């Protein structure tokens, strides 16, 4: 409960602070890619959590490291006049879908296991 509260407070603070910021339009591309990197990290965390392999350090480093690399790719792509950031976009999106499928499967497995347990308990009773 406390943990979720902390996270919610941080989310609210972030939203309130962010709503006052107007980024120069040229930077919106960078930020879009960074958002995608963040989303990828979040889904990766969810997948790791579902497999009981979640590590906060790995999550945090991946969260910010991926975003920084994605932004760097956008920058490099603009310098070289080549849309390198597309690589980051594709990788992040595909990983996002993979992680989502992992989460989905684990949840479904959990639900099925619970059902089986219930049946077993019923049989026991």
């Amino acid at each position, binding site marked *: 409960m*406390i*943990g*979720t509260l*902390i*996270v919610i*407070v*941080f*989310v609210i*603070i*972030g*939203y309130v*602070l*962010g*709503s*006052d*910021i*107007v*980024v*120069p*339009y040229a930077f*919106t*591309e960078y*930020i*879009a890619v*960074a*958002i995608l990197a*963040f989303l990828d*990290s*979040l889904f990766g965390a969810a997948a790791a959590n579902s497999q*009981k392999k*979640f*590590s*906060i*350090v*790995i*999550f*945090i480093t991946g*969260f*910010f490291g991926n975003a920084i690399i994605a932004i760097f790719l956008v920058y490099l792509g603009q310098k070289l006049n080549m849309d390198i950031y597309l690589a980051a976009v594709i990788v992040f999106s595909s990983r996002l879908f993979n992680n989502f499928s992992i989460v989905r499967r684990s949840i479904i497995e959990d639900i099925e296991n619970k059902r089986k347990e219930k049946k077993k308990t019923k049989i026991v009773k």
Partner: protein
Amino acid sequence: MAKKSEKTSTEKSTKTTKVTKKIDVTSIEPIDKDAKKEEVVQTKSQEKVRIDAKKIRTYILLGIAAFAFTLIISAQLNTVSNTDIIAEGMREAELLSELAKYKEQLENLQEDYEDSKEIVEEYKSNASTNDALIASMTAELNAASALAGLVNLKGEGVVITLYDSTTTASDLSIEAGLVHDTDLVAMVTELKAAGAEAISINGQRIIATTPIRCVGPTIQINSVKVAAPYYIKAIGNAQYLESALNIRGGIVSSLRSYGITIEVTRQSDIEIEKYDGSYKLRVAQVVK
């Protein structure tokens, strides 16, 4: 290190859940194992404290990540909603192509503008030349019509009034006391010789084809019959005209000798009406 500790913590948490399950299982058993239960509860609470501290740290880190994420997303949404409708949702490439399109349009429009500007310039120069031509032509026409007697003219000049003789001289016939067509012709010729620029007799403008001819008791001028008294108006240098008429031995004195009353008055502002008859040349053709 942190990674390892995390792993161990998760392992521990799983262990604790197992432990609690065991406790649940044991709790269903008879109550003679109270002491054991208390011990287990104590260890459970100790572990809980440790896990809570770890959990809170984890959640704070998660919160920081969430903070960064929401901050960036709200800033991005804010920016995108604040930008122009045209730019919204367009990538740089699209905008560039759009820009190129508009540039092309601009160039086309500029070309059109240049073309129409040239046309306007042409028209303007033509108009100016036309204007000059028209002006010179109108000036010419005005001069020609003034000479031809097709316009009213005004200026200084003399007005001559001729009355038939009321008293006949003893040694002359009555006819001699009348103003004849030849008298008028002589008068007109004299005025022309003195530099008259426009002459009219009783409102009839004297033009190149004007006849002055005796028609019975009247005189025909421009197919109109006029009778005495005759008012001759002439525009020109009034002094020259007057002196030309009044010269000793001139036309006025010779006519007066016949008993004809002649009055010559100088006027500064005479208006002579235009020739109002037909001036169509039926036979003569302009030689080109």
